[in-house]
């Protein structure tokens, strides 16, 4: 009996018309209260009645209800916010309005909250959760938020595909102001029609053709399954296959775009990491094993600034990131300077010892950070680096990746112009090429060494700051990148900026191509390492070996 009811409700749910007028608050409140009823039939009926009111604000409510945030407080339904804990470890629940999600205010205008024991959590059973989920997308069609509408339009074209809402979807396809929603609505409609076994075959084929014209990636996946499961009649198979070829052609371009994008993105991260190393290893000949830890310090600096600025995922304060970039540079450069001044300086003539000493420093730094900060830390990216932009259909660029790419370009240009156009850069190059001669010409090579090392460390700090937007912050995060960075520097040719850029991008694109088309990440890593070993055999000095007299050193 109970099951019958639920099925009946589901049917009504999806069949009901989109009613426009917003119901009275009190009526909605009374309906919401029924969700706490002991009788499952009453609860299911309440959800269905709520949907029939057609109030688009219910989309947020259904989402909250489904995830168990509905409470009864003094007999009145409220939504619960994030639980707050006071010094006594007692837990308080901020009370929010059921429809708007805004904090409820006391008569004095203070936000209301309740001791967790004084509210009753409204239990959501599995059938209610399913109903609420369907209802969420159902009322989401009328939402004022384009994101919600898009999610709803998309979801209704996914299984179980119900044809009851076709008219609503078609209306959105014709009238919605957002192009992507119009497109997705038509895609969903065609998907529903194509898979609807009750429709005549020619209509289904027409829907498939429509999807072909849309170059729909979703349709391609569905079509492949249909062909595999032999759901398509023999005589119509060629038509469907033509559609698949049509979509595959476009999606081939999409996957090429994706591969290039991923390659550029991995490449830019590698370059950002390796740039600092190219400066210290390439120009000074110091194998700095603590380079990865400079990056880690940059990431932790970003984390600290995030705490200082009070940036959290619920309350954004994006200014922290604006400060984080230069400050991580300065902090990492400062610590790099200390390392150079205290240790590396005394080991310039002994590369093996400097390698061991810096490796020791890296271990000390990792454990020190672990002792101070405990363990992994949550990094919340600034909100403007969360999300993506769709440049063309199905071609998606995440903001975080674009940001790192641009940052890399800026840093590379900055370093290049520093080297080329400033006196400091001139002195750096002079010291690198011929130290005694530079000294004889009055260059303070000690200072130049210190500065070069600080610069290399600082760039690593910036890389660490940037990486927090796409990854986590852990004490040993530097170890994940140090090997790859050395690979980039060695393959590019020691001491060559252009070499680092070419080999960084090259490694990024090759590894992403391997991963994207043929190999698992584990194997792609192995293949890359083998390729590099072979490459070094033939070009021991890297892509851009030093020329002329410098090559003799």
């Amino acid at each position, binding site marked *: 009996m109970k099951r019958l009811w639920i099925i009946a409700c589901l049917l009504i749910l999806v069949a009901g018309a989109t009613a426009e007028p917003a119901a009275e608050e009190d009526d909605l409140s009374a309906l919401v209260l029924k969700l706490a009823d002991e009788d499952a039939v009453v609860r299911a009926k309440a959800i269905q009645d709520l949907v029939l009111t057609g109030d688009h604000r219910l989309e947020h409510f259904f989402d909250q209800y489904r995830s168990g945030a509905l409470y009864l407080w003094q007999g009145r339904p409220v939504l619960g916010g994030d639980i707050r804990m006071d010094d006594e*470890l007692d837990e308080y629940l901020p009370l929010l309005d059921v429809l708007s999600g805004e904090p409820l205010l006391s008569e004095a205008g203070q936000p209301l909250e309740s001791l967790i024991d004084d509210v009753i959590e409204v239990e959501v059973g599995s059938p209610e959760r399913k109903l609420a989920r369907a209802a969420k997308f159902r009322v989401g069609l009328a939402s004022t938020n384009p994101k919600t509408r898009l*999610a709803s339009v*998309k979801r209704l074209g996914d299984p179980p595909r119900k044809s009851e809402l076709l008219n609503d979807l078609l209306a959105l396809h014709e009238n919605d102001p957002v192009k992507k929603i119009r497109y997705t609505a038509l895609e969903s409609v065609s998907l529903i029609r194509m898979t609807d076994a009750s429709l005549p075959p020619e209509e289904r084929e027409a829907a498939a053709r429509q999807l072909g014209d849309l170059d729909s990636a979703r349709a391609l996946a569905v079509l492949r399954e249909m062909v595999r499961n032999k759901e398509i009649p023999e005589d119509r198979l060629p038509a469907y296959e033509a559609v698949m070829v049509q979509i595959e052609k476009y999606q081939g371009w999409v996957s090429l775009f994706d591969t290039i994008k991923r390659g550029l993105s991995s490449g830019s991260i590698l370059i950002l990491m390796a740039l600092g190393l190219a400066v210290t290893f390439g120009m000074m000949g110091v194998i700095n094993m603590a380079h990865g830890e400079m990056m880690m310090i940059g990431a932790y600096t970003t984390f600290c600034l995030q705490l200082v600025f009070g940036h959290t995922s*619920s309350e954004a304060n994006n200014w922290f990131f604006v400060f984080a970039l230069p400050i991580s540079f300065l902090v990492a450069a400062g610590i790099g300077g200390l390392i150079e001044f205290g240790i590396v300086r005394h080991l310039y003539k002994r590369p093996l010892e400097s390698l061991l000493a810096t490796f020791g420093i890296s271990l000390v730094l990792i454990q020190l950070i*672990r002792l*101070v900060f405990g363990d992994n830390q949550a990094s919340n990216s600034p909100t403007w680096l969360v999300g993506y932009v769709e440049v063309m259909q199905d071609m*998606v660029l995440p903001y975080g990746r674009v940001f790192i790419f641009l940052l890399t370009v800026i840093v590379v240009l900055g370093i290049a112009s520093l080297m080329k156009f400033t006196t400091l850069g001139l002195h750096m190059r002079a010291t690198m090429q011929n130290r005694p001669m530079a000294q004889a010409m009055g260059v303070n090579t000690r200072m130049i060494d210190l500065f070069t090392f600080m610069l290399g460390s600082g760039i690593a700090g910036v890389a660490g700051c940037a990486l927090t937007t796409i*990854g986590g912050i852990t004490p040993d995060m530097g170890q994940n*990148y140090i090997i790859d960075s050395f690979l980039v520097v060695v393959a590019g040719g020691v001491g060559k900026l252009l070499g680092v850029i070419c080999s960084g991008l090259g490694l990024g694109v090759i590894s992403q191509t391997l991963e994207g088309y043929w190999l698992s990440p*584990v194997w792609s890593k192995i293949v890359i390492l083998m390729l590099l070993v072979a490459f070094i055999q033939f070009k021991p000095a890297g892509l851009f070996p030093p020329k002329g007299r410098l090559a003799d050193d």
Partner: protein
Amino acid sequence: MKTSVYRKIKVGFAGALIGLSCFASAAEPIKVGVLHSLSGTMAISETSLRDVVLMAIEELNAAGGVLGRPVVAVVVDPASDWPLFAEKAKELIAKEKVAVTFGCWTSVSRKSCLPVFEEYNALLFYPVQYEGEEQSLNVFYTGASPNQQLVPAAAYAIKELGAKKFYLLGTDYVFPRTANKVLKAYLQSVGIPDSSIVEEYTPFHHQDYQSIVGKIKAFAATGDACVLSTINGDSNVPFYKEFANVGLTSDDCPIVAFSVAEDELRAMEVPPLVGHLASWNYYQSINTPENRAFVKSFKKYCMKNNLPGGVKRVTDDPIEAAYFGVKVWAAACKKAGTTDVDAVRKEVYGLEFDAPGGAKKMHATNQHTYKPVYIGEIKRDGQFKIVHRSDGLVEPDSYSKLLHADGSFPAPTGGPKK
């Protein structure tokens, strides 16, 4: 030379500790070992287990100790170095003569020190969900076996989420490999065709999930796919971030994770994870007075001892399992009237007890624990909303019935010397 000085200092320190506790109580203390990594990669997870074990021991002592004797913890640091686990275990058993050891997280660390425990017929309480396929008489497994975590999650995905296609994604080591073997066997047994199952692994510490997320996006385009993730540790952050950043949500393709609990979420940016799922036997959000008291006392313990995180510390499944492991051992000692391993083992079998998350039971023969299974949905505050509960306790399999369909299980290893 250096090591011997170091050792002397350590022995001296341990001696001082024992001396102190002897002073406090006339009865000779019982020494127990704590074998969790406090440095290296696994410190992130294992430090919490050391903390909760010490808290449980403090509680035992406050209640008069075990058999009227105070309990003293000997904490060693195997430093996430697998062979070192065996050495440290040997040190605990042979030199410190501990009555029992609580420890290990990764399966490789357990496998590394298992021969030591079997050689000396010593006892280890292992608190973490793992891949199964093991049954040593010298280990009590208080975490979940595969049929208490993996299989119910897959069943939930099929029944409640309507999933028909599965992307099995894991870090490349023994737990995900075996877990996926079990999952695959289960999915095949319920009629999911091979073409609808993809298996993929990434190296440890993998950071670049672009291509994998791209593949998942294409795979999930049909709208009825789901990811079963055994990704471990710091790789989870870039994975979930990438997933959200290309526009995938839990509505497009839910991720059910087997290695993401509250303690991991504490160190992650939660918004990209909201709505995704996990499968465990315990959540901090279990709303009973007993559990709320447990959570409170753990937070208080962390605050009092100035542990990193302090009041922000959370409890999770392995923490609960480590905690009740200590209590199970103490209860068994009480019943046996001794700390002798063979006598204690006999008393642990079939022992019923109240854990923070509710009543549980030790299995009568196979060394594992009867536990309830909960599917939880990740909320904004890093806690889980329980969306599905098993009917009562689920019987643990030591060897998976799915992988040994003929019912021929290997005999248990270890135990008393013949």
